[in-house]
């Protein structure tokens, strides 16, 4: 197995080098056959890496502990899902996973664009292949995931860190990697454009969509990382400016900057060098991020692995990237001349430029501050460290400036905005913003940064609403359709712009969530049973501590009761889990009571089983759920902006009036936080597996409560109590109850989580993570359904083509009426 895997990697390396060579030679000799074979080789690389991935996954599943990497990150008792995710749970596997994702993604990108960008494709293939070669080389000489033990083979693995045995961690690295890799595609196209000299704006069109995909996945990865930090690490926050978090944030910032400045180039032919620079920087930062977290160059909690050899290779690779890329930019400088100068500072391109500067400055700042300990040590010999307060001091104002620009920039006209236009655009939003600020002041909000953030958010939301309402109004007047239909038509007609607005709305919601942090209240106390502590409007009383065992861990669970003002919230079960393989590293199982406006977040930090006393860290986290909701909205907006034109063109053919209302209402429903709320109180939305299957699983998850069987699973226990419980489970499942409801039933019966083999943490709350996906998926399905049904009407309605012509004219007119009033 191990040697087969290594052999596959070698073959892949050879194939990748062939792809690079054949493509370049073919392009220079104008030999179509060579170019074609290069493309074929690129596909082959993807196929081979799929084989290699299948091999390592197989090794994990069958438990081949002769492979060192498998032995380090897996064991037999691990649930199957975490055996699979262990693939990217450690350094070696994650390098392979990275290049696997790159190969597959690259193959798709090439397939997608090979006909429309014939002259660029060979070089695109070559650049992607060279990047693949670097990672493959790294694996072959240094981090081969297939490396076997040279001496005796252990018969059992060490197991994946318990901290990583969490559903968010299972999907966080892949999405972050897809984001990173997605940024490689634009870089490859940019390089191809520089090498060939085809520097018109067509390469941008090819990569804009890929950049958006990459950006979406980066956003998803970062959000999942935040959720994971919030739920698993138990320090009560979501983001702490750790070097690893920053490594993911940096390319996200430059990617955001690129997505904005690319519009300026499309519309006005400016900023061409700048865009190329951003593309290169974004790619470089993805590599740098990997380097930063893997090499120990930043002495953070993460960078344990002092690995000079790896650092060396990455350093060389990055130097090569910088030299070659910027060398090419300098060489092509004459071709990258702007077609226009900046006409006025009161214009959209100027606002975009400002946005770019602020974003770039923030990226530089984050980079500087992350590297500051290393820098200061190198320069002065004294190692100086900076903490999150320092980051916050800088990033708060930067964030607020960006938020303000989010509101202002889309309202400005291209080239030059007149005063009258400014007044027309900014009057209402400014009023609403100021009124919000005054209202907050009267309401007694005294945290200036959060207050300002709320006021700015109100301002931005008003601008967005105004854009939609006015646009829909104009459209409704000209097409004579209803307002809702007009609004949907508007989004479909200008889906990039309005998708972008929806993304902005998502960002605003996330900002609200971050701003809530200004009102965080926390308390650390030692409580004996019966004692209570008051934090803000919440009261928490400690009831008891229990110790339980199962095959993989020992769990210490506290039972606490909570009240908000005088209203009882029921019981919470914060716990510590001691996995047998990692006794010294207990995991914190936080108990969270989610709410629209605030979360009650209880951590059991320490305990004394004899005295039944425990140390609690109680945190009130206001508005934190808006971060996740905001991400859902952001994902939806990105998807709308991403969808190909045809999808909307068909829908626009003949929208039956009123047909659009339902999807819009549904979208509003899905997008609203009410859903997140409904998830916790209403019925479950999980897909139930066939009853018998669920039953079988439940019997393995619930223990006998008779007290005499030593917490045996209901499935195995032979006492009458267990038989009764089995009947109860059967009955509940047949009544159509979901797993959580069965849990809830038993918890209620027993008054604690005693019957559960694994303490749960408010079952429904765990579903909250699904909300962003549900929103995104529902949006996709709705749009898909709309396209499908409305496009079928085309045969009947032949006026569709003429309608789209008038639509074209209308869109232009709308654009002009709203914008170019100069």
């Amino acid at each position, binding site marked *: 197995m191990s040697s087969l895997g290594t052999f596959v990697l070698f073959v892949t390396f050879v194939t990748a080098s062939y792809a690079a060579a054949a493509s370049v030679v073919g392009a220079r000799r104008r030999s179509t056959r060579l170019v074609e074979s290069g493309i074929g080789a690129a596909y082959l690389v993807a196929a081979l890496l799929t084989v290699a991935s299948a091999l390592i996954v197989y090794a994990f599943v069958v438990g081949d502990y002769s492979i060192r990497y498998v032995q380090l990150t897996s064991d037999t008792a691990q649930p199957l899902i975490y055996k699979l995710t262990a693939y990217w749970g450690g350094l070696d*596997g994650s390098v392979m996973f990275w290049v696997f994702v790159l190969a597959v993604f690259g193959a798709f990108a090439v397939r997608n664009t090979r006909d429309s960008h014939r002259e660029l494709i060979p070089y695109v293939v070559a650049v992607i292949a060279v990047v693949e070669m670097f990672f493959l080389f790294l694996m072959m000489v240094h981090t081969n995931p297939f490396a076997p033990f040279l001496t005796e083979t252990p018969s059992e693995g060490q197991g994946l*860190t318990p901290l990583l045995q969490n559903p968010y961690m299972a999907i966080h690295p892949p999405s972050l990697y897809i984001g990173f890799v997605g940024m490689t595609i634009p870089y490859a196209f940019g390089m191809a454009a520089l090498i060939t000299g085809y520097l018109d704006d067509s390469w941008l069109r090819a990569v804009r969509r890929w950049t958006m995909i990459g950006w979406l996945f980066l956003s998803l990865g970062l959000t999942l990382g935040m959720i994971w930090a919030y739920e698993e690490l138990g320090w009560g926050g979501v983001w*702490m400016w750790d070097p*690893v978090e920053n490594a993911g944030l940096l390319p996200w910032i430059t990617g955001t900057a690129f997505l904005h400045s690319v519009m300026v180039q499309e519309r006005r032919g400016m900023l061409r060098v700048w865009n190329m620079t951003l593309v290169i920087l974004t790619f470089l930062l993805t590599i740098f991020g990997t380097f930063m977290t893997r090499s120990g160059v930043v002495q953070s909690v*993460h960078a344990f692995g002092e690995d000079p050899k790896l650092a060396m290779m990455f350093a060389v690779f990055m130097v090569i990237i910088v030299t070659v890329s910027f060398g090419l930019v300098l060489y092509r400088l004459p071709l990258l001349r702007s077609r226009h100068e900046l006409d006025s500072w009161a214009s959209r391109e100027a606002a975009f430029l400002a946005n770019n500067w602020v974003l770039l400055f923030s990226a530089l700042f984050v980079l500087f501050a992350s590297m500051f300990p290393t820098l200061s040590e190198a320069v002065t010999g004294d190692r100086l460290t900076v903490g999150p307060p320092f980051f916050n*001091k800088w990033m708060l104002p930067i964030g607020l400036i960006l938020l303000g620009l989010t509101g202002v920039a889309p309202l400005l006209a291209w080239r030059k905005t007149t005063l009258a236009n400014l007044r027309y655009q900014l009057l209402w939003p400014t009023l609403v913003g100021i009124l919000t600020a005054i209202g907050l002041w009267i309401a007694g909000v005294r945290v200036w940064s959060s207050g300002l953030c709320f006021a700015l958010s109100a301002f931005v939301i008003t601008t967005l609403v105004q854009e939609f309402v006015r646009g829909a109004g104009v459209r409704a007047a000209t097409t004579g359709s209803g307002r809702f239909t007009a609004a949907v038509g508007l989004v479909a007609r200008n889906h990039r712009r309005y998708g972008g607005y929806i993304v902005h709305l998502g960002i605003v919601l996330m900002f609200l969530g971050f701003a809530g942090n200004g009102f965080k209240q926390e308390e650390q106390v*030692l409580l004996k049973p019966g004692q209570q502590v008051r934090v803000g409007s919440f009261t928490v009383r400690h009831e008891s501590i229990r110790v339980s065992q199962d095959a993989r861990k020992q769990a210490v669970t506290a039972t606490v009761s909570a009240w908000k003002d005088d209203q009882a919230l029921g019981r919470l079960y914060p716990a510590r889990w001691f996995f047998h393989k990692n006794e010294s590293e207990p995991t914190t199982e936080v108990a969270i009571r989610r709410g629209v406006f605030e979360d009650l977040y209880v951590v059991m930090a320490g305990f004394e089983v004899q005295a039944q006393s425990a140390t609690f860290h109680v945190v009130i986290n206001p508005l934190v759920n808006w971060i996740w909701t905001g991400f859902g909205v952001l994902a939806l907006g990105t998807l709308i902006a991403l969808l190909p034109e045809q999808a909307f063109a068909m829908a626009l053919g003949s929208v039956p009036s009123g047909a659009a209302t339902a999807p819009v209402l549904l979208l509003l429903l899905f997008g609203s936080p009410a859903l997140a709320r409904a998830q916790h109180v209403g019925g479950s939305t999980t897909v139930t597996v066939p009853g018998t299957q669920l039953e079988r699983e439940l019997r393995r998850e619930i223990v006998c409560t008779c007290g005499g069987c030593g917490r045996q699973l209901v499935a195995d226990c032979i006492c009458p109590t267990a038989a009764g419980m089995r009947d109860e489970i059967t009955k509940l499942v047949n009544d159509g109850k979901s797993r959580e409801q069965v849990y809830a039933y038993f918890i209620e019966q027993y008054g604690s989580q005693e019957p559960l083999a694994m303490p749960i943490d408010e079952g429904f709350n765990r579903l909250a993570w699904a909300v962003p996906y549900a929103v995104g998926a529902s949006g996709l399905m709705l749009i898909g359904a709309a396209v499908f049904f409305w496009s079928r009407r085309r045969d009947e309605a032949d006026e569709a083509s003429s309608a789209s012509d008038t639509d074209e004219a209308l869109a232009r007119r709308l654009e002009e009426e709203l914008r170019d009033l100069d």
Partner: protein
Amino acid sequence: MRQKAFKVGLTTLVLAVAFGGLLYSTLREGAAYYKHVDEVMTDPEAWYGKRLQLHGFVADDSLLRRPDSLDYRFQITNNGKIVNATYSGVAPDTFKEGAEVVVKGRLSPEGFAVEPNGVMAKCPSKYQPKSGVPVRSAASTRASE
């Protein structure tokens, strides 16, 4: 053209100076020296009142906790030098005698006063660094807030 270049240059200069000044002043407040116990205790007076991150090991038989409270007293040692420290609050699980710790706070003649959430304890286990994945215990994470 030359005038324009002059304008751009001047603007850049002003902005750079302003940001540099701001950065420097915030850094002076926000930064802490990262030192080992023996580096500091050879000349403790020089470090009084400065923000420090002190790296060392919890001395054996020195960790005391007042009953029914979160007040700790302990000694941190490194290369034969010892400093007394006090802390009040939640400490990570890995905070034990013999554990490697990094504590944040200030040194005074009375000893080292650790600030709230200022205890980070490294676990002595054989950790493989995880890719893109923090390896930190909850409390040490909170401690580095």
